[in-house]
């Protein structure tokens, strides 16, 4: 019973913690937003290995194999990135 009570309390604590941390991150989020607005950025710097994975929202239809005819597809990024919605049927 003690275990369940502790676990439930801890889960409740995650809700409080999440809300506290979200509140604390508001300024940082605002700063990131400001930087995006100031530099007119369009994408997240999550996948930096190739230009079409660095800026998926700006890539064109001919992105694949543009680095080199024999270039291997970037894995796993290539598999985890879906094509932009405007290119889907």
């Amino acid at each position, binding site marked *: *019973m003690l275990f369940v009570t502790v*676990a439930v309390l*801890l889960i409740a604590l995650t809700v409080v913690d999440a809300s506290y941390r979200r509140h604390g991150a508001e300024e*940082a989020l605002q700063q990131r937003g400001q930087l*995006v607005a100031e530099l007119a950025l369009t*994408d997240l*710097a999550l996948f930096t290995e190739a230009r079409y994975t660095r800026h998926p*929202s*700006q890539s064109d239809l001919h992105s694949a194999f543009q680095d080199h005819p024999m270039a291997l597809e970037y894995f*796993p990024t290539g598999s985890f990135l879906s094509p932009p919605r405007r290119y889907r049927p």
Partner: protein
Amino acid sequence: MTKFIRKQRYLIDFTLSSLLRRKTKNLGLLLVYTLIVFILASVMLFTHALRSEAGIILQESPEIILQRMVAGRHALMPAEYLEKIGRVRGVVRKEGRLWGYFYDYATKSNYTMMAAPDKGLSNSEVIIGAGIARVRWLGIGDFISFNSFDGKTYTFEVKEILDSESELVSSDLVLMSETAWRTTLGVPEGYFTDIVLSVRNPREVSKIAGKLTLKLPDTRPILRDEILRTYDSVFAWRQGITFVLLAGAVLAFVIFAWDKASGLSAEEKREIGILKAVGWETGDVLHMKFWEGGIISLSAFMLGYLAAYVHVFYGSAVLFEPVLKGWAVLYPEFHPVPFIDGMQVATLFFFTVFPYTVATIIPIWRASITDPDTVMR
């Protein structure tokens, strides 16, 4: 009511001691169950946090980006296109953007080079992202060199390092003056990478994009909404793919748990027989087994969820880093902000706790309605 609660407490006490009698088996089950919940919850929390954050910060990205396309590929935008656009009703600002890529042989990584005229940089100064500072061991006042398009080497002083809090969008950025950018990357005067437009009324964006396509048929507009949708679907896709990859493990667990929950061992059958022989009613046995399934699945859910929360929001989802990193040398160090979707957590709760609990009840009901003597034999 008090009697009912007291009865359930006794039943739980009895169930716990019964579970502890088969300690190794039940702890093994709990461990595997917790691990499955942990992985599923980690993926869910991480992707939702990233999706929410991307949605908030990219809300500030340009409303319309105009790219010139030549033979289906992104080409440089002549500066006169800014004049060709002319006055379009609703457009409050339009300007050319200068950005491109630079492959650094020293670190084998790609940088995003950008001209930032508003930063007041001289032609020998740059501002770099925290990711570049990390991989090149650079501090403010240090020097960084870039090979230009014509083979010359230009050295720049690091004037500033962008705040590490903004690494998610700026980790690989190099900001420089317009002249320095053109000299290094070889883009002549009179050309931009693309054009960004600000629109006063968000409802007019698609109409304006349509007008621009008519005026400049060799361009394509990319709307902010499309950028946001791209990221929304990237993370939805990522979550989906991970779940598909995990499906094998989850199915193996489902078979294991179903087998464990629905098939009664001889020992368990004997226990039910004894309980019935000493006067327990069928309802009591069912209640007890309900608590048994409930305790295991609820514990697994709570432990798995808590571990996932700590992993994602305190450990920066360190287990997913190799997948996200891919081939990239430059990977932003970032701590996801805990945006949690209650509906997703509720769905996870339902699909992890409910089926197991129900699966334990049916075979017990079958065993507990048969004659104790038959069950014990």
